[in-house]
């Protein structure tokens, strides 16, 4: 998880004035990752499953951002 958060930091630092923001949902993934160890029972199994999909969907998308951002005009 720390690696993922570190990736988030790198991405954040790469997102400057002339960049499109890659996702409006980074704060959500950031929040979920930070709170992931907490199982307060507030989510149903379906929602927990959806949370896993949400994170995987999001993280796969972000994994390539840094190298791509570096070669962009």
């Amino acid at each position, binding site marked *: 998880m720390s690696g993922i958060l570190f990736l*988030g*930091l790198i991405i*954040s*630092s790469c*997102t*400057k*004035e*002339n*960049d*499109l*923001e*890659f*996702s*409006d*949902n*980074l*704060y*959500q993934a*950031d*929040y*979920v990752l930070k709170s992931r160890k907490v199982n307060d029972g*507030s*989510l*149903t*199994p*379906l*929602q*927990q*499953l*959806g*949370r*896993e*999909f*949400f994170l*995987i*969907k999001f993280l*796969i*998308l972000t*994994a*390539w*951002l840094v*190298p*791509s*951002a570096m*070669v*962009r*005009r």
Partner: protein
Amino acid sequence: MGATPQRFGNRKPPSAAYATFSPVLHLEEERIFIGGNFWNGRATGEHYSSNLDAGVLTMGLPAAEQALVPFLNPVEQNNASKADVLKQIAKSKYAYLWTEAWDGEELTYDTHDEISLNYDRVGLAIAAYEGSPEVNAFSSKYDYYLQDMVDLTSQEIQGLDLFNGDAMCSGCHISERGSLGEPPLFTDFTFNNLGVPKNPYNPFYDEDEVFLPDGSAINPLGDGWIDYGLGGFLENDSNHPEWASLATENMGKQKVPTLRNVDKRPGNGFTKAYMHNGVFKSLKEVVHFYNTRDDGTWPVPEVSENLNTDVGNLGLTDAEEDAIVAFLKTLSDGYVK
């Protein structure tokens, strides 16, 4: 930007938070379209309306439909097929959640029907999460203000008054509670062309030189590509050929987004981007655009037809723009005194 390097989408990703409140895309009286997900409304939600076998659905769900698109989109995750997505899920360490979520049913993907059903369930699960309190927290300073738990500053109050008054923001970004007392969602789920200029830094314009395996360019039009929003979708929506005649009057219109979390960001110094193409990089810039669009200093609109003429010459002072921005910053979830 997608899983395959150098492939970029054409719009700024819309927020998933509060997206589950959007109704199925439909046409109301006075020829106004409401609902759907994505900037152009193309995740209509109708697929889930007609596929009740997918689970516990009793209504359409644009958010579920939207959630499935990135998996197969060649400029996003670029998975080969629905079955391929399901196969990866079956191998994951969280696969046990599938059987818990679907009453003990195993994840299977051997037949067309199984693939269709279970792929739809993936969308449902994501939408279920996106509809949970973890995503839609309703915990902003403004939410607590509406509950008389906190006070807004004088500048925030001024901004709220302008938001509801001279700036006319609340005409589309509803700021008051619903008829049943439900908290405001800061959108009416309609579509609008605000005259936003093209974003010259949109990487999609370079995709005329990036090709898919079949040899076609991702964006054959290159710099000449224009985002026609809802109108562009209606023109080609095979499910509703009767809507094609309404495409012209909807060219350039984009979905009115919620303003909840409009200033929320993962950390200080993170630059957000606004509007459908991310052309603006601060709320101040957005508000200033609404205020002065028609003064001749801005680039031409990406689409000049069907412009919203309520905004563009609001006559706000610099201090009043700042007050609106201050109010918008009260809409971030996770407020702590």
